[in-house]
């Protein structure tokens, strides 16, 4: 009797594991097939895409879609625009959020807690409500159709500030107190003690900002109108409206715009996963 139970349990375990792996594998394949299918399509010659069945793979592959795309749209220019905006926003957000987060966590000033409540409250405002008024604010600032419209709107972050504050609150204060006695001012403490010790969280926050701007679509669509200002996502969307049946070309464009983020993901997967968990804190 006492022998039977663990056996029964381990049998149950085995069944459960087998079911888990089967369903997980089925799901994982569903996740990956669209990507593989895009790559396969992008490596077919235009005349072969419709001539053969979907499961047919061209060998040797034809790279002409990857050559053509540079002639159809200024991809390098778009990549440069995106990289410029994403880098400025990332660095800006890291600086402004860590400074504000430090002040909210460690410095005392009148109205601090009320201001922080305002920060928390702004996190509840859905981005959709801000599109129209921000368009008008940008119009009045003369920032429409410039990259300033993308940079200014994102260079400060309530969520980033909240995250940095929570992190600094858990940071032991002994080092800080010692530095204070040595006559360090708050900026020196921030620069020499807190920042060097918050690299992981800064990396995660930076990644979230960078990926957010890289993948952003609606706001650039609203504020940019000249072709030379477009970001990658905008460029890809316009490519689709112009060559909407040229699937080889469109898949090549998708693969090229996805590649940098996917490579970044594999390089620093740990921080990406952390950023997913932070997204869970957002609401």
């Amino acid at each position, binding site marked *: 009797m006492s022998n039977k139970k663990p056996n029964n349990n381990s049998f149950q375990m085995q069944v459960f594991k087998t079911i888990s792996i089967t369903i997980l594998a089925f799901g994982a394949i569903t*996740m990956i097939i*669209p990507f593989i299918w895009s790559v396969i399509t992008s490596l077919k010659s235009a005349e072969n895409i419709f001539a053969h069945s979907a499961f047919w793979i061209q060998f040797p592959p034809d790279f002409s879609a990857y050559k053509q795309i540079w002639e159809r749209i200024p991809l390098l220019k778009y990549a440069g625009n995106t990289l410029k905006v994403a880098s400025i926003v990332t660095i800006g957000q890291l600086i402004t959020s860590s400074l504000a987060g430090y*002040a909210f966590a460690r410095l005392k000033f009148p109205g601090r807690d009320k201001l922080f409540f305002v920060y928390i409250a702004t996190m509840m405002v859905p981005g959709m409500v801000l599109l129209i008024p921000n368009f008008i604010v940008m119009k009045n600032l003369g920032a429409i159709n410039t990259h300033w419209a993308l940079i200014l709107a994102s260079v400060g972050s309530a969520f980033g500030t909240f995250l940095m504050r929570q992190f600094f609150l858990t940071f032991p204060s002994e080092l800080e107190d010692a530095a204070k006695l040595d006559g360090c001012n708050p900026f020196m403490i921030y620069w020499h003690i807190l920042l060097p010790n918050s690299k992981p969280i800064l990396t995660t926050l930076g990644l979230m900002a960078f990926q957010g701007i890289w993948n952003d679509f609606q706001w650039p669509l609203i504020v940019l109108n000249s072709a030379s200002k477009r970001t990658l996502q905008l460029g890809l969307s316009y490519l*689709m409206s112009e060559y909407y049946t040229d699937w080889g070309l469109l898949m090549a464009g998708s693969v090229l715009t996805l590649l940098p983020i996917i490579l970044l993901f594999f390089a620093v997967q740990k921080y990406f996963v952390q950023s997913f968990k932070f997204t869970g804190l957002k609401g």
Partner: protein
Amino acid sequence: MVNDRKKTELPASNYSKLNRRREAIWGYLFISPNFLIILAFTVIPVFLSLYISLTDWNILGTPNFIWIDNYKAIFSDPLAKETFFNTIYFTVLSVPINVFLTLILAVFLNQKIRGITFFRTAYYLPVISASVAVSLMFMWILANNGLLNQMLGSLGVEPIRWLTSPKIALNSVIGVTIWKGLGLNMIIFLAALQDIPQELTEAAAIDGANRIQQFFKITVPLISPVIFFVTITGVIGSFQSFDLVYNMTKGGPGHATSVIGYYIWKQAFDYMNMGYGAALAYIVFAVILILTLVQWVIRKRWVYSED
């Protein structure tokens, strides 16, 4: 005596007063870059948006104050009605399916099995992928002679017009939305599951509870705040969906896939009806605000009940 005390303490309190003042100045200095951006692009716009929603502004002319005419117009706009209906359908279908699937996947992933890194990575890929590229990939998969119809065709199924049939298109967009979002909630659930003390499930197992009983009697009650949170954020997210609709269907065929996030953009930035668009957005804002507040209140109650 009162004087005495003042005399002895004055220098010290003067000193700390100066220090406190200095600290306050540093504090304001540190928050100001971030605060000014939040003020200019979040706080002021919330009020500006309310004002715009009470005008007939169309960018070109000067705005006239028309009180609640925009809000009245929404209630007699058949397209707005269709859009609201589509949005509710979208939400009611996509959120529960997402929550159900991600919870199951997280439970499966929360054990020692082979290839776990591969599985996780596979589910993350759609999350980090930009919505425009995802739209393009699925437009090709769901095309009349695309991968899905060819796969079904080999089973003898007639081609289905996934994106061009008014009856099916919205479901297709919902499907892609679910596909793209699985990895995110899965991770949130996985983190919650890993927080459950193992002794609890082990004790239940010794008492003879099987996996399914363990799941419903221990796991679900313990992570119910997370389930609730994921549901609310899912609802909020689905109210704002735009990218996939814009790129895959442009709200069509007809208005079959016109959801509120798309309709607001259409009114404000295609027809330039800024006032009308702002009024639509404000209605959604009110609904989201109520949902968020409900979530906060319930979350707090849950935290208390845990003590």
